[in-house]
């Protein structure tokens, strides 16, 4: 595999009882860039991402991470290779403090080095703007803050690839704006795969866009290319002319 691609798939397919959710997906994610994965509801985005990080077993096809075939690896092993993942539906440790939430994410890599973990936690909490809430219980946070916390947990892992599944869903406009800033501040630091509905976010953050429709890749390219792509407009952007 090409060294400039951190992650790629070949012929990745998932069928549920004869119904194809993903068909023969050949996909490549360039290292260090932000890529957005878009597509109408039911296009198979979550299935695809699920197969990337190992939550869903592929029916056929291969997933490569940094040139290594990771088909046989269970989810937690893939994560340990440097993939961080945030859920479509917020998933934090609701009964634990913010500090502990992030520490759990950091600790997997940093182990029992308390100082390093604490430093990391302070760093990422500051970065997402939750520092002053470190001792609060995660379940008590507002929805928007919980999403930020989840991103902080992703960051605390120092991921080489950060997969965010619809991170701005349900956020207020002001929160979305700071989210965009956050993602852009990460550019170059890590590779980001963003599953996103909000085209504004996509356009302001993504270097590349892949469009999924009916479980197949419809188009891939820069935002400009995608914007100009007629097939995409027909299938997906159709009515929303501009963002």
């Amino acid at each position: 595999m090409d060294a400039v691609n951190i992650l790629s798939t070949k012929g990745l397919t998932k069928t549920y009882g004869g119904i194809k959710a993903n068909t023969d997906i050949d996909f490549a994610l360039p290292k260090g860039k932000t890529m957005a994965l878009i597509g109408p509801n039911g296009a198979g985005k979550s299935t695809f991402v699920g197969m990337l990080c190992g939550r869903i077993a592929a029916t056929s096809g291969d997933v490569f991470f940094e040139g290594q075939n990771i088909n046989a690896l269970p989810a937690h092993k893939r994560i340990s290779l440097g993939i961080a993942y945030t859920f479509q539906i917020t998933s934090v440790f609701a009964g634990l403090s913010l500090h502990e939430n992030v520490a759990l994410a950091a600790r997997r890599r940093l182990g029992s080095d308390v100082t390093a973990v604490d430093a990391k936690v302070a760093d990422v909490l500051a970065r997402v703007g939750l520092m002053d809430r470190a001792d609060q219980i995660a379940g008590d946070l507002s929805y928007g803050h919980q999403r930020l916390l989840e991103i902080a947990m992703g960051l605390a892992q120092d991921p080489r690839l950060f997969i965010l599944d619809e991170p701005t869903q349900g956020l207020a406009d002001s929160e979305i704006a700071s989210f965009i800033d956050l993602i852009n501040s990460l550019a170059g630091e890590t590779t980001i795969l963003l599953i996103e509905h909000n085209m504004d976010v996509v356009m302001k953050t993504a270097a590349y866009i892949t469009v999924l429709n009916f479980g197949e890749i419809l188009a891939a390219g820069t935002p400009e290319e995608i914007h100009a792509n007629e097939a995409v407009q027909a299938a997906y952007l159709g009515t929303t002319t501009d963002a």
Partner: protein
Amino acid sequence: MSNTQRSNLLHLGTITLLAVAFFILPTYHVGNLSRIMVLAVYAIGYNFLFGYTGLLSLGHALFFAAGMYGLGLSMELFDLTTAPALVVGLASALVISAVIGFLALRTSGVSFMIVTLMFAQAGYLTILYFGTYTRGDEGFVIQQADRVLFGVDLSSDTGRYFAALALFSVCFLAVAHLVQSPFGRTLVAIRENEERARMLGYDTVTHKLKAVIISGTISGLAGAAYALLFGYAGATFATVQYSIFPLLWVLLGGAGTTIGPLIGVIFMFYLIDLSSSITSAYMLIAGVVLVLLTLFAPQGLAGELRKRVFKWMP
């Protein structure tokens, strides 16, 4: 004072208090406390799995019995001395909890509860089936003369009390330390949200298996200690009732707190003991108190304390 210091103070204070209790309490309560400490070890083992890892087992009596019979039978049938018999007891509990854990962890939630219950039930029947060796329900006595460990007579009041205290202290402190370690915190993470923990890169299955083994082995240790300190092994300890007891103790004392198991055992023991001296219908009192507790102290006694007063409590 930092929270860690406070926790240490609480733990060491508890142990000191128990040590002092030997000298100031009347004989009867000293005897009770030595029993309570052994049972608290069982509860600590159970709490590790239920309170910290979030796995509700109804089969812990099997682990308790594994330790009890591992020790008892090796002394009874193979004339082992106490120390090696204790090792056999521990090893039996470890092996059995590993096997049960491996199988039962394919399930989760109520299925886990039922599978562990059924394995324990099969274990209980197995003890009866091999009645020729185990003496089934009747069980057998471990002779007083054999109950000596490193020169300490475990059948004397003093020997028994401090052996129980030593065992309790080791398990109490070890588990208190373990749950603060990265491993223990990961277990808590699994309890809170297993899928999230997995997607942070933790091997949750292996973690849970380790938790079952640690919990089962501590429970087995309690079983072995019970046989050794009180001189009796019997199939009653393998019945479902003895799987429900630690659940009850832990829930009453406060699941997921270090001190909860001890408080739960003390509470339940004296609830039965005191109410039975007032009325023969003591189960009625026990029942009413349990219902009241769920209504007014849902987190268990230590859990309520933590929620209301000592937020730092481990």
